[in-house]
């Protein structure tokens, strides 16, 4: 059988190695004691992590910009996306499929275009570089993930449970809040985390919308790489990688991760 072939398994291992190699070397360099971009297997040093926490440009971009922006845009995206998912899954209306497709647009439009279009739009409104601008941009790219995850969760909930509550005298809205919402908790959580990661990792939208006060961590890493900064970049990247890894693990614990894609 094809699936048992050694060639296939070898190929899969090699492809995974190539896929993970750039991430692994970044983590390796971050623990490197010298200031070269190399992985030193002899000594492990936290020098670049100390340098990271000593640099206000780095810590501000993480704690004052990236995390708050991701939190705000994820809350907004989860709110909008959940409502939209309920409408798509539980209601019938004209052109529902067209609406569903339109709701995925922020994901289909290249994010560079979205960034450029929003930049020019916010520039006209004199909102360039504001927190509102970047939060709105990140909210937009997060909602499609929330819709997919929440819709997948909603489809899996047997409507009979809800009908039972309605038959027992609940109004449809109360039945939804008291019966469906608790069952939907893991999807809501996963959707929120996905939209958080999307914002936290984004560079294509941030590169247009961020200003001097709203430089996100990936954007600061980007400019440091261009100026060929020290391996502090690697430490900053590793912190990003660790946070993203933990969040994906959390999602995977109680949600089928593939339903998000």
């Amino acid at each position, binding site marked *: 059988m094809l699936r048992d072939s050694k060639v296939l398994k070898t190929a899969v291992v090699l492809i*995974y190695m190539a896929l993970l190699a750039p991430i692994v070397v970044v983590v390796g360099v971050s623990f490197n004691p010298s200031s070269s971009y190399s992985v030193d297997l002899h000594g492990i040093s936290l020098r670049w992590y100390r340098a990271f926490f000593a640099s206000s440009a780095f810590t501000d971009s993480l704690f004052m910009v990236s995390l708050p922006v991701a939190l705000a845009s994820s809350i907004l995206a989860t709110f909008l996306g959940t409502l939209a998912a309920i409408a798509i899954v539980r209601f019938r209306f004209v052109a529902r499929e067209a609406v569903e497709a339109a709701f995925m647009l922020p994901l289909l439009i290249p994010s*560079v275009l979205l960034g450029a279009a929003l930049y020019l739009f916010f520039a006209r409104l004199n909102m360039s570089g504001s927190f509102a601008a970047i939060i709105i*941009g990140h909210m937009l790219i997060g909602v499609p993930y929330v819709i997919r995850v929440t819709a997948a969760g909603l489809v899996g909930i047997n409507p009979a449970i809800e009908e039972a509550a309605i038959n027992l005298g609940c109004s449809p809205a109360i039945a939804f809040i008291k019966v469906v919402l608790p069952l939907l908790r893991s999807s809501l959580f996963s959707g929120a985390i996905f939209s958080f990661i999307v914002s936290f990792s984004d560079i294509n939208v941030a590169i247009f919308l961020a200003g001097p006060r709203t430089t996100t961590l*990936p954007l600061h890493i980007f400019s440091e790489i261009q100026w060929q900064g020290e391996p502090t970049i690697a430490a900053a990247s590793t912190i990003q990688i660790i946070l993203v890894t933990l969040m994906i693990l959390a999602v995977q614990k109680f949600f089928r991760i*593939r339903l998000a894609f």
Partner: protein
Amino acid sequence: MSSQVIYSSSPAERRAAGRAQVAPWVWLAGPYALVLFLFLAIPLCNLVVLSLFRYSATSIWTPELTASNYARILDGFYIALTLRSLWIGAITTALCVVLGYPLAYFLARCSPRALSLGLFLLVLPLMVSTVIRAFGWIILLGREGAINSLLRALGIGEPLGMLYSEGSVIVALVQYVLPLMVLPLMAAIERIPLSLEEAAVNLGSSAATVFRRLIFPLSLPGLVSGILLSFTVSISVVVTPALLGGRKVRMFGNEIYDQVVTANNWPFASSLAVMMILLTFLAIALGLAAGARAGRRR
């Protein structure tokens, strides 16, 4: 989906609700629809309008209709830029097909435990910031980088100048978009019953024949969406060519970024962006048409 609760309020209920004659789905889908209108539709329209305005060195643009921004794209430099972006996108997509099939097939047919690990290792690189992945490739491919050190240790003298070339951009892009190819492909292969494969093998088909006559044709829908995703994403990147392409390998996204932010020529940047939208839509239309044709032939 046939088994759904479909709420329909009776006229009495509607009257009881007083002024609120609006269907509940409007309240649910409305907020997001409004956000899409305000922050997607209007900015895109603004882009199209700007692309028709004349550039002015003092006020960025003047409301004077002109087609000159589009005419400028026909300049040799921008034609070359467009062709390079399409070429890099096509090569990246082709490599993703070649590398994506083994991975997608493996994930579609492996045990649930291997699947959860495999998916984790696939989604992780996808979710880590593009900048960090490009940074990793700089470390790997640089003159003093990991690969050259390895070659030196093996006694191969001359360090290879791999960075800042079309090759380094393509390598990084393949790593960037490969998960986007694998995920839909895997979903399509999963839907092919394993018994079909078993039957083919029992009747004496080789692995190559099983792939060519069975897996490939039946996974075409997944392949088409994977190709569309990979291609549209890889022709519209900014950061990857900016960091790995150096000054030589510029792509469409770099030019849009520079015209918007550095040169402040918003009308021209807008016309480039409109071109990119059109190219993306053209690619999607061609892909869908090819997919439909392949579906009919089957």
